[in-house]
């Protein structure tokens, strides 16, 4: 039996799949529907100061015929009154006691205002709070959202205003629009929050309409930067989650967000240390129903790998994560083509020829081109294997026997102790010793 239930900084839910605070979590109607389909939790659309949205709020980033590789938005927080939202949260929680309901908050930077909204949110029976320090547009200009998230001191101060009155767990939602994501995460911890959620959206301009020459989305002739989300941001989000998870000073729970569309994406966040995951764009694209594949995809994977709960999985990939200086310079891998699978598209050839190290030859054979890798020149960069359209056709094969290891850090250490400086000549000597040819 596989148990998908989680406890994220004190917030419990039957599975790790939460809806991120966004249009899918605007109302009780939507959230009840989502819970019916299996979502484990939801972060209610951010409750905030009075705002008004504009028409034309979203811009899609399509790639190569694929819709919504990314989604940009200039939407603000909820545009319904605080009272209506609180009432609906209360009613929804009553109907769904086993699901996690987290109330997202963002108000002006005044202690009393925060105290007031926190108390009201707790009164709904919600399971937790999420402080939205992430919104990169509209609210930040009013001193809220990213304007707070980008300054660790503010982040700490405001979080303290919340934690000093809150009786339920507090997650701080981080903006990725910073140079070092560890700083605001540490600030959240210093302010006694129970966890962090990341990432919020990334500053972006999604595109230009080449007929009108205006930016997209266009609000009667004008537009501006917005927040970018969806599949394209996943690698950035994964990196930021890993940075927080590997920070020795940080020990709170993590709710992973950013470009999650499938159970595989979710699992990657969990493997890098997330306890819950949140989804927005994928639901905006395909609806709440996507959670069903997420739940049984993850369950089946756990079963096939012999895991019974997510605690056994969480953070598993962090051990293989290290800095460049600790990677083995003597690891030798080369590309090999399985000629029986090759379809002769020559994509590996042109990629290597123009974009890498010119180590694939093509020769005409039986009316097509035969692509052959010159192994002695192959630097093992992976490019050909990445561009090859046939699964399993090009594989990277290890040639060294693994008995020797020398990292960059080791090498520099050696140089130091031998009193040699880091020079091209000294490097060349090391390379020669180990049969590494650079051309």
């Amino acid at each position, binding site marked *: 039996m596989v148990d998908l239930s989680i406890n994220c900084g004190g917030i419990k839910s039957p599975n790790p799949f939460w809806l991120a605070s966004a249009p899918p979590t605007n109302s009780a109607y939507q959230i009840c529907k989502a819970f019916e389909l299996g979502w484990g939790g939801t972060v209610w659309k951010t409750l905030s100061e009075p705002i008004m949205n504009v028409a034309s709020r979203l811009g899609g980033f399509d790639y*190569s*015929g*694929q819709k919504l590789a990314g989604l940009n938005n200039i939407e603000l927080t909820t545009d319904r009154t605080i009272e209506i939202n609180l009432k609906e949260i209360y009613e929804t929680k009553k109907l769904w006691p086993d699901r996690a309901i987290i109330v997202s908050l963002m108000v002006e930077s005044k202690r009393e205002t925060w105290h007031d909204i926190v108390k009201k949110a707790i009164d709904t029976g919600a399971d937790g709070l999420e402080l939205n320090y992430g919104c990169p547009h509209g609210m930040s200009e009013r001193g809220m959202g990213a304007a707070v998230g980008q300054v660790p001191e503010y982040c700490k101060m405001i979080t303290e205003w919340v934690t000093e009155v809150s009786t339920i767990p507090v997650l701080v939602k981080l903006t990725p629009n910073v140079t070092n994501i560890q700083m605001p995460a540490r600030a959240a911890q210093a302010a006694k929050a129970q966890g962090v959620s990341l990432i919020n959206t990334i500053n972006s301009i999604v595109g230009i309409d080449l007929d009108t020459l205006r930016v997209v989305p266009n609000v009667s002739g004008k537009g501006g930067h917005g927040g970018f989300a969806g599949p394209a941001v996943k690698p950035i989000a994964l990196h930021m989650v890993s940075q927080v998870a590997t920070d020795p000073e940080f020990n709170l729970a993590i709710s992973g967000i950013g470009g999650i569309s499938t159970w595989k994406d979710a699992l990657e966040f969990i493997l890098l240390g997330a306890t819950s995951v949140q989804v927005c764009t994928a639901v905006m694209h395909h609806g709440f129903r996507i959670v069903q594949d997420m739940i049984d995809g993850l369950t089946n994977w756990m079963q096939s790998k012999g895991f019974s709960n997510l605690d056994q999985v969480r953070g598993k990939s962090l051990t293989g994560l290290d800095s460049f200086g600790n990677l083995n310079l003597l690891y030798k891998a080369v590309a090999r083509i399985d000629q029986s699978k090759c379809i*002769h*598209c*020559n*994509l590996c050839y042109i990629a290597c020829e123009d974009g890498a190290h010119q180590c694939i030859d093509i020769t005409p054979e039986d009316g*097509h081109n035969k692509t052959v890798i010159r192994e002695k020149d192959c630097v093992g960069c992976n490019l050909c294997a990445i561009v090859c*359209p046939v699964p399993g056709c090009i594989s990277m094969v290890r040639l060294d026997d693994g008995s020797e290891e020398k990292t960059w850090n080791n090498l520099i250490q050696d140089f130091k102790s031998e009193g040699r400086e880091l020079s091209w000549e000294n490097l060349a000597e090391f390379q020669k010793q180990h049969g590494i040819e650079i051309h």
Partner: protein
Amino acid sequence: MENIVSKLSTEQYEKNFQELHPPLTYGSALAESSRCLYCYDSPCMKACPTHIDISEFIKKISTDNLLGSAKTILKSNWVALTCAKACPVAVLCEGACVLNEKGDKPIEIGRLQRYVIDNYFEQGMPALFDVKPSNGKSVAIIGSGPSGLACGAELALLGYNVTIFEQSDVPGGLNTWGIAPYKMRKQDALKEVELVKSFGVSVKTGTGIGKNITFNELYKNYDAVFLGIGLGESNALSVKGEELSGVISALDFIEQVKTEDWSSVPVGKKVAIIGAGNTSIDAATEAKRLGAEQVIVLYRRSSQDMSAYNFEFDLAKKDGIIFHFLTAPKNIIGKNSVEGIECIRMEPGQPDSKGKRSVLPVPGTEFTIPVDMVIKAIGQEAQNDFISSVPGVKFVNGKIEINVENYQTGNPKVFAGGDCINGGKEVVNAAYDGKMAAHGIDKFLCN
């Protein structure tokens, strides 16, 4: 002819002759173009007889650069709309697409090309090519089929003064008068003629060489002559009853169909087609679409020997055409009009030097099929009379002999391409020949 089928409604005719491969929409073209791997030195390009840079034109569709895409296509092939609609892509570019090897559906190259060229014509043929200033030399082209058009377009861009002489009142050759209407309509072929004319080529229709003007007159007045004359009449069956009313050659029948005045084409209720090449299939499916109740293809060899492509054979079967293999016509029976066709069973004999098995009649197996119409589709003759009137041209096995390097005939001033040099292939071969011959002519005249 007796037992002529009754006329169908206009809607029914249109439905019967509607396109087999409808155009792609913007979204589907985008999706299909994005599916292309953008192969390097792509096999599809090599498989195209005109070597269109296919991955390049497809890439340009995916970036909304449709004019650039049209230019990529046209610079290799001047009858790209016809080719997009009528090429046997399954055995050419699409057959070579690497996705076949991957077990996926090949890219729909034909339909993508059509998408681009349709758009080009819809945009009113914006100028994409520079016409070089006149070099004062003139070339006469005989025939406005794909080979003539391609040769004319290419020469005009190089600065030649080009005149195409066409015996028919409507130009385009078999693109206009031959290709099955469910593949393309006459109008499409005429658009390509307009494109070629836009480069300054003059097309003189209703001007048969050897009829309205002698070959010698052209030969004297022009610096070079290109023969894009195609083939001649359909071969005769040489059986009794061939002169009866209701016996017609496939080409004559198809030409009537291609007027697109469907209701005026007489078709018998029961039709026999003799021969099993691509033209036979066209005639058979067209007869069926005009309302014939029963259409039978008679072929004296077996199905493996049939020259029709598999996809054409499949189409005919889908249309309910009946095939009798190893069946040869012996006599056409009837008083004034066709009433039936007497056939005899054949049996395979020894393969000949080319591996084609000979067939021999089996005595005593004669039988008669009642039919109202017989369509002869056992190939076309070469234009023997005309060709023999051209001094110096060598004529071997029904084909004009040329130097494959430059398409020059035995007469240095005379070049040739298309069906008249290959005995009847595809539009795309004619298009390539015409283009290459133009360069042969250019070298000849400029050296």
